């Protein structure tokens, strides 16, 4: 294999390297020097991120089982950034937890799966990547081994994900029966619209929708998010979800491009359900992690609105939105985890008067909430509006009507938290929560990103250039 091939594979190679280093460290009992270990790991992740930024390489490897192109590199970079930020925000959590190396090994394994999935050129690799990205997460969900909730989260995740895998695979098997060769090009070329393929599509859609937690395949989400450690919730809501969204777009736009009408129809229904149900449930939540679970369900509904554009704009805006969503969610979870680690509180009512006790956290959380709600000048505004624009371009009027309604409901949901932080008086004043360097950096990157991405537009143009719809 040439250097060029390694350049194409650099994400996967670097992650694997780190995993190996961590294994070696684990064997050497490096767990004891927790601080230097964590700093070291974070530096490695930073390097990983930097390596990702190296000049991109396009092409196919392994007979087309592995692809690389500009957009994929960008998506991987986005996810790498997310990984780094999540790692930084979970510094305090891991400091207290003794199994930090396992934590990273599991997370990085999942990340490897994510990269494999993104780069897949064949359904087999896609399937493997999907599984590889999910199974370690189930272990991570159960990471707080001493907590009941955590076990429950783990079992719910693993069982329902196994079930969803079954459904997905059943769909794939039908698809295989229909086309005979599961490489993407072949499927795209040979797919015909008939009962069998539609059935296969529905099953595959179910499998993906499960991973993206689209209603009605979402029910595991809230429980798993609530039970898992914040860092894992963060990872689930951002990396897992974001990566599957990326893959899902390419599956829809390329593999199933021959029956766009059918998937538009399905997506419209799912999107409406996701937005509405997600928002309606978010409305009644008290636990913040649970709240964000439903919020993320609603957000995915919005992404589907954009995907329903079925065009270059759809691809661009969805990618752009995921980036913004990633920054916003990481910032929110960063704040939640900082406060949880310091005080053990994670319900909305505990945040009363947060602005008075911890103004910076309150402001950062507010900015990220505004971004999620799509309020200018945060980038979320642009992200959301572009999704709507994309959908408008395809004439999805019913979907847009529901999106408009849901923008309002979601604003209510997010403002509820803002209100708690800024307007309500504290019943019990929270102590001033300290911020370590990692947390500061992560939150700063997120906040600055949220604010400037809407104004520094070359990034958007770059995504647009890379987004190619075949």
């Amino acid at each position, binding site marked *: 294999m040439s250097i060029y091939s390694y350049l194409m594979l650099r994400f996967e190679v670097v992650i694997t390297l780190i995993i190996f280093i961590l294994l070696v460290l684990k064997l050497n009992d490096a767990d004891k020097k927790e601080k230097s270990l964590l700093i070291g790991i974070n530096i490695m992740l930073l390097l990983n991120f930097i390596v990702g930024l190296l000049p991109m390489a396009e092409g196919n490897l392994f007979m087309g089982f592995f692809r690389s192109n500009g957009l994929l590199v960008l998506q991987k970079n986005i996810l790498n950034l997310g990984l780094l930020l999540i790692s930084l925000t979970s510094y305090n959590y891991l400091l207290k937890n003794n199994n930090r190396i396992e934590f990273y090994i599991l997370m990085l394994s999942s990340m490897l799966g994510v990269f494999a999935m993104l780069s897949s050129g064949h359904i087999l690799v896609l399937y493997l990547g999907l599984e590889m990205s999910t199974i370690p997460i189930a272990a991570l969900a159960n990471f707080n081994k001493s907590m009941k909730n955590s076990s429950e989260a783990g079992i719910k995740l693993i069982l329902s994900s196994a079930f969803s895998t079954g459904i997905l695979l059943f769909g794939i098997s039908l698809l295989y029966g229909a086309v005979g060769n599961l490489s993407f090009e072949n499927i795209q070329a040979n797919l015909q619209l008939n009962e069998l393929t539609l059935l296969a599509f529905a099953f595959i859609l179910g499998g993906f929708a499960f991973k993206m937690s689209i209603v009605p395949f979402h029910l595991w989400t809230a429980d798993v998010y609530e039970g898992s450690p914040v860092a894992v919730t963060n990872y689930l809501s951002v990396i897992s979800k974001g990566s599957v969204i990326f893959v899902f777009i390419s599956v829809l736009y390329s593999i199933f491009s021959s029956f766009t009408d059918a998937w538009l129809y399905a997506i419209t229904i799912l999107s409406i359900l996701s937005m509405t149900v997600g928002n309606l449930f978010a409305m009644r939540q008290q636990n913040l992690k649970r709240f964000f679970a439903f919020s993320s369900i609603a957000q995915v509904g919005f992404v589907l609105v954009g995907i329903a554009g079925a065009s270059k*704009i759809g691809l*661009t805006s969805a990618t752009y939105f995921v980036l913004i969503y990633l920054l916003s969610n990481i910032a929110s979870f960063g704040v939640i985890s900082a406060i949880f680690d310091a005080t053990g509180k994670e319900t909305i009512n505990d945040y009363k008067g947060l602005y008075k006790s911890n103004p910076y956290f309150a402001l950062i959380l507010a900015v990220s909430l*505004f971004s999620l709600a799509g*309020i*200018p*000048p945060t980038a979320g*505004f*642009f992200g959301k*509006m*572009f999704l*709507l*624009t994309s959908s*408008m*371009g395809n004439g999805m009027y019913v979907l*847009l*009507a529901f*999106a*408009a*309604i849901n*923008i*309002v409901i979601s*604003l*209510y949901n997010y*403002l509820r938290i*803002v*209100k708690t932080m*800024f*307007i309500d008086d504290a019943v019990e004043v929270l102590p001033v929560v300290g911020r370590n360097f990692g947390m500061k950096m992560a939150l700063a990157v997120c906040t600055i990103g949220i604010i400037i991405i809407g104004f520094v*537009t070359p990034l*958007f*143009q770059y995504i*647009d250039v890379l987004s190619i719809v075949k």
Partner: protein
Amino acid sequence: MNVLSILILIPLITALVLLMVRKELHMKLIALFGSIAQLGYSVWLTNYYINFRKAGDTAEMLFQTSLGWFKPLNIYFSTGVDGISLTMILLTAMVVVAGILVSWKIQHQVKEFFFLIVLLSLGAYGFFISTDLFMMFFFLELAVIPKYLLIGIWGSGKKEYSAMKLALMLMAGSALVFLGIAALYFASGIYGGQYTWNIHELTQINFPMSVQVPIYLLIFTGFGVFTAMFPFHTWAPDGHSSAPTAASMFLAGISMKLGGYGALRVATYLLPNAAQEWSWIFIILASIAIIYGAFATMMQKDLKYMNAYSSVSHCGFVILGIAMLTKTAFMGAVMQMVSHGIMTALFFAAIGMIYDRAHTRQANELGGMLKQMPFIGTAFIIAGLTSLGLPGFSGFVSEMTVFVGSWERTGIFYRVATILACASIVVTAVYILRSVGFAIWGTITNKEYETLKDATWNEKAAAVLLIAGIVFIGVLPFWVVNLISNDTITIFNKFISVAVAN
């Protein structure tokens, strides 16, 4: 650097500087100087604009620029002003200065308060100078959340409910607007060959009727929510009454004008065919708002509720003027926006001053305020008289222009609407005089009120500024008319050309 960008830069810099200082007095001074600088700049800009016009520049808008923003979506940062937007900018600048002055005594979270106020004004300035629909929408939305926070944090009464209601309703309105403009964007690609958000380019395109109608209804209704159009007005009474004084002034004085301006500049101007066919809906709604708002006002005891409902009624004139589609009516609508903006700001300022002292806004609990606080009482009466359309104040000229303009539209339906609108002047008189009679005149009902002090320097300055504005327009209306008439005619000519084309 474009002259218009400075309009955005001044508040932006003010806001940033505000964030850096620590002393409360400095914050107030910075906010005040920032807003005064903005007012001064707006006046200078107006003069500059007039000179350009005198020199014979007949471009539709002046000082146009266009910077790429989101180029793949053809979103540009493009600016330009005409007389209509300039008057709106002047109005905004004036209300902001007055609002900052009346908030001088604000107690807690001073920095946040002024920051939000400056941010709100930034939204308004940006909105008025935009010629790109997306940019316009950006600024429209920008102003929503500051309102929520201003009401929620510094408000009174059932502030959380009101703030939430306001934010949600305005958000719903803006969502409709966005759907409309996004549809327009794609329609421009299909029917004009060039995807664009730019107002000037969009006016060149003749959209087919089937495209225009839904977009028109969406955009007009969306902006209508901002203008408190019946039946989407209920955010206004609750919002205004819970808001702190300055926020009420902004809400009624500026925010509601965003809607009126948008309904005129976007909905009506860009979609003339649909406007001609469908504006009757909004005429009906406006007539209802005018009369029904006035009657609802009559029953209010709380002065802020009263003024809020009266704003619903008065903004009905704006909608009516826009929906009537005659050039005089357009002119009247614009004048009514300015007039109502200043008047209602003065009204809320006066009510706020009374409330700060007497700690009640119930008209029947007050009384004898004129005796105790002649300045505030007089300001209240002047605001009231403006509201009921007394000549010499701005309310009269603007309402009359709307009436005359509406009367130009022949046909029984339009006549009835106009007559209903005219009838509101009587009801307006009733509620204004009732409130003056209860709260301002009469004897002092409460012993505690006998120690109340009259306005302080900052309040006086605010009131004098606003009264000066009212009287200026009321006595020299031709100044405003000269500034805006060409532009309303431009909008009107669109209809003529459409009529000819058909």
